[in-house]
């Protein structure tokens, strides 16, 4: 029975995925090798493409910097409370994505507490807003994907043997040196996993840009979505999805290359 189902199911899975892949290449109305779609897409929507990568990149870096100390803290000082603290980290996932983002809309609203405080502190000009700015969009992305960053970091830091750090200190490394030479390199797999898990969905996101940003903050996701669902311009929307995929893959490849070489040089030194 197992055999039968397995060899029935695996091709089925194949078929599902393959149809998914080829469904993408199709240029809609008639298949004409219309490579022009790609060029027009790049020409017309370059700002959105660039902005997507920019926002996603910024959000990823900030999320990494913000959550690394916390992951470190839970891994090494969490003690008995580790599981509870981890529950706190994934807590945002228990609230529907859209509702979370709407909550940020409430928090950052024009007459809300945050905007008023910032105006009083003269950080924001009177009458300034947070909604409909790039800052709000990036902040929303950071918040929504923060658990994706914090969890892999925690997992890799948790596996670091504290005795290695002690050994480094015994060998007269000061705390900072021990961290840079021992803890950080050992947690690198978590850093890589976290950045990828954050960057990939962030680059394709359109919800934050739609709810927290204005038209000038639109990302490529917004364009794809409106092309598909409002304008029914399937060919160019499909082309854009592919460019987005290609862009992300290229980024991931470059990233893997850089990190790989850094790890190599790190171990050589």
């Amino acid at each position: 029975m197992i055999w039968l189902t397995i060899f029935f199911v695996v091709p089925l899975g194949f078929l599902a995925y393959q149809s998914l892949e080829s469904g993408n290449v199709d240029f809609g109305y008639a298949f004409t090798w219309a490579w022009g779609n790609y060029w027009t897409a790049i020409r017309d929507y370059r700002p959105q493409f660039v902005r997507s990568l920019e926002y996603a990149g910024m959000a990823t870096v900030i999320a990494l910097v913000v959550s690394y100390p916390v992951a470190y803290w839970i891994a090494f000082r969490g003690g008995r409370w580790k599981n509870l603290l981890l529950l706190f980290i994934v807590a945002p996932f228990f609230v529907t994505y859209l509702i979370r983002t709407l909550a940020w809309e409430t928090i950052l609203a024009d007459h809300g507490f945050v905007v008023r405080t910032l105006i009083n502190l003269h950080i924001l000009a009177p009458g300034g807003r947070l909604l409909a700015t790039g800052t709000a969009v990036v902040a929303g992305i950071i918040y929504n994907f923060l658990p994706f960053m914090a969890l892999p970091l925690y997992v890799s830091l948790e596996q670091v043997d504290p005795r290695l750090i002690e050994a480094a200190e015994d060998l007269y490394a000061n705390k900072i040196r021990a961290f840079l030479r021992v803890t950080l390199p050992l947690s690198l797999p978590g850093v890589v996993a976290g950045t990828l898990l954050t960057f990939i969905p962030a680059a394709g996101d359109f919800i934050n840009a739609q709810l927290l940003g204005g038209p000038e903050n639109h990302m490529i996701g917004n364009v794809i979505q409106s092309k598909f669902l409002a304008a029914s311009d399937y060919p160019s929307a499909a082309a854009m999805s592919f460019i987005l995929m290609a862009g992300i893959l290229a980024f991931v490849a470059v990233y893997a290359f850089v990190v790989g070489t850094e790890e190599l040089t790190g171990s050589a030194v």
Partner: protein
Amino acid sequence: MSAVAVERSRPRRGVLASTWAFVKRHVLTAYSILFFIYLLLPISVVVLFSFNNPVGNFNYTWQGFTWNNWRYWNGPPGIQSAIVLSLEIGLIASLVATALGTMIALALVRYNFRTRAATNILIFLPLSTPEIVLGASLLTLFLHMTFVPFGFWTILIAHVMFCISFAVVTVKARLIGFDRHLEEAAMDLGANELTTFRRVTLPLIAPAILAAFLLCFAISIDDFVVTYFNAGNAVTFPVYVWGSARNGAPAQVNVIGTAIFVIAVTLVLANVLLQRRREKQG
């Protein structure tokens, strides 16, 4: 002598130095607490505003406390049917995805077939693709399969598709640490393949299957992007929220959000407590 001297000189450190030591010791803790406040802030806003008594359409500023949003949770038209649709699709999609995912995981771990590497990549692909690309590609697929009308079935197929990967990954993790000797022992004792599977394999991987099911359900209920692309006129709960956000989401959206949050957290806590008890017994 010198050791004693060192011991004595310690308490005499300046106030500044000891303050600095205190700061150094606790700065990480303080920072982490701030981090958690930041994480929980929007959640508390969601909970708080589910009790808001909004004037007019917009639920953005605090007006006053009321139980009415909870009492009339299905007040806004369409919200109840949206929730029901989300639950239906979540249940069916997770059942199908978990069943298929378990079998794929079994095949991947147990059998060496030629396309194994390719299958592994195929399982990984949906996990590493932006949702919008998944949604868009499924949409183009369904546009060509005109015999499937957009709505319940297209959403269901889409959800099964992206849930399978999560199910496979979850079950596979458990199968890798699985002791095959147990199955062999069952066979030696005269059990046939079916009985072995039913009596030995299944109970051992049951926790992973349950975990996969719950994970699929959570992802399916929460999914917006893929659903939105393939829903046609059907409205799941996230799609409802999106639609209502344009002209001010009703406070009932926060009620449902709070309810989902409370249920999920309760389930997780119950699971943790159960595991603790089991550990104590074992």
